């Protein structure tokens, strides 16, 4: 056990190129998914917070349910869409980083949208009377609320990055876990552990844990700073 740990630390200490490639691809895929998730999820969540239409409650329930959707289900859906006979088969994206970004985006969008909907709706309840009297229309209100809630929303966005980075099922299905091409930290950990190469698994696990921990520390301090600076 200690020898395995020593080997894992050695891989990290020597900046093993295989390990760095896997970490780099993981970050590229998850950050891309996060950007898509934020661009879609934040405005959609904010719009849903202030919108008033029949069936809004059902949309909110569905969105909340999608937050807990198993990633393998997303993986299968994206696989079917990207497979040769699927509607997006002609693009040839299956078993590529793009497919993994698509799958992770589908996981991240509902999470960011649902959390931002709750955050913005709480603010909307407080602000709606004054916005109404001032004559702020709903599209303007969405922009103002997104700006006003920016710090809480950035924490929600970081939660989305955490979900994307720790996900394994969907990227395994649509990426194929191809060495040097679609192998990310989580799929590499699963594979190397099954092969008995625990040193690489532990090294990747340490990197993954550090990133997740770092994100949470960043979210905590961002929130504290924002409260001190902006009230």
């Amino acid at each position: 056990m200690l020898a395995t740990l020593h080997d894992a630390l050695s891989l990290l200490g020597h900046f093993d190129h295989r390990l760095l490639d896997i970490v780099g691809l993981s970050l590229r895929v998850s950050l891309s998914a996060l950007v898509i998730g934020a661009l879609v999820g934040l405005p959609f969540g904010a719009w849903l917070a202030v919108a008033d239409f029949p069936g809004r409650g059902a949309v909110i329930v569905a969105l909340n349910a999608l937050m807990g959707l198993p990633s393998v289900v997303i993986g299968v859906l994206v696989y079917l869409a990207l497979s040769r006979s699927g509607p997006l088969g002609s693009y040839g994206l299956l078993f590529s980083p793009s497919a993994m970004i698509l799958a992770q985006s589908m996981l991240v969008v509902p999470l960011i949208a649902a959390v931002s909907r709750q955050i913005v709706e709480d603010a909307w309840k407080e602000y709606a009377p004054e916005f109404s009297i001032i004559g702020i229309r709903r599209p303007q209100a969405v922009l103002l609320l997104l700006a006003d809630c920016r710090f809480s929303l950035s924490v929600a966005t970081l939660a989305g990055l955490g979900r994307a980075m720790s996900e394994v099922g969907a990227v395994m299905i649509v990426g194929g876990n191809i060495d040097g091409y679609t192998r990310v930290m989580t799929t590499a950990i699963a594979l190397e552990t099954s092969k008995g190469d625990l040193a690489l698994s532990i090294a990747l696990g340490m990197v993954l844990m550090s990133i997740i921990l770092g994100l949470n520390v960043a979210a905590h301090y961002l929130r504290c700073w924002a409260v001190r600076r902006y009230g």
Partner: protein
Amino acid sequence: MFPLSIKGLRFAPEQRVVLDGLDLELSGEGISIILGPNGAGKTLLLRLLAGLLPPHAGSILWGAAALPDGRLAMVFQQPMLLRMSVFANVEFALRPQAMNAAERRARSDNVLERVGLAHRAKDCARLLSGGERQRLALARAWAMQPRLLLLDEPTASLDPSATEAVERIVREIRTEGAKVLMTTHNLGQATRLADDIIFLAEGRVQEHAAAQRFFAHPQSPAARAFLQGELPWRIAFDR
């Protein structure tokens, strides 16, 4: 927009009657202060006038129109302040109006100067003190150049000097031609500010009179009891 004519106004959510057959006529000048015990419907009346709630019965006529044709602004007891600068909290309220950025900036700077917050224009609004927050809310309302300004207990929980600053601003807004309709529990403030008093109790206007006459010779038994510090409403509750 004026006279503002309210007839038979009723608001009774879930069978709980708050306003019942309220009649009131207001001219377009001066400061009218609404007095009354807690639960009399003072804030509710302001919210109904602001269009934030629909009445269950009765009518509100602005001149001959069903909707106000002039600008209306309202300052709440706990004003809403965005997590932005003091300046931005005024400027955003002017965006729905047909003004360019330079005009918005000039008017925002002007009102901030007049309420004594120009030196804090770049500070975050949420870090202001209670009195400064209320002055900022008044500045925002003032910048909208309202024809009718609704104030819901704007000095509740403020200290005497902050209260005095708010009262000075309210007088200035009145002098510029806005009609001010305000609720308060502070009888001293009502004496200092009011041109006329609307005394609300048991869901309707019990008395509407010039301020001097109201305080010297209240006509209704409810107003007399209120001014003498009697608590008939609490007695009724205790029974």
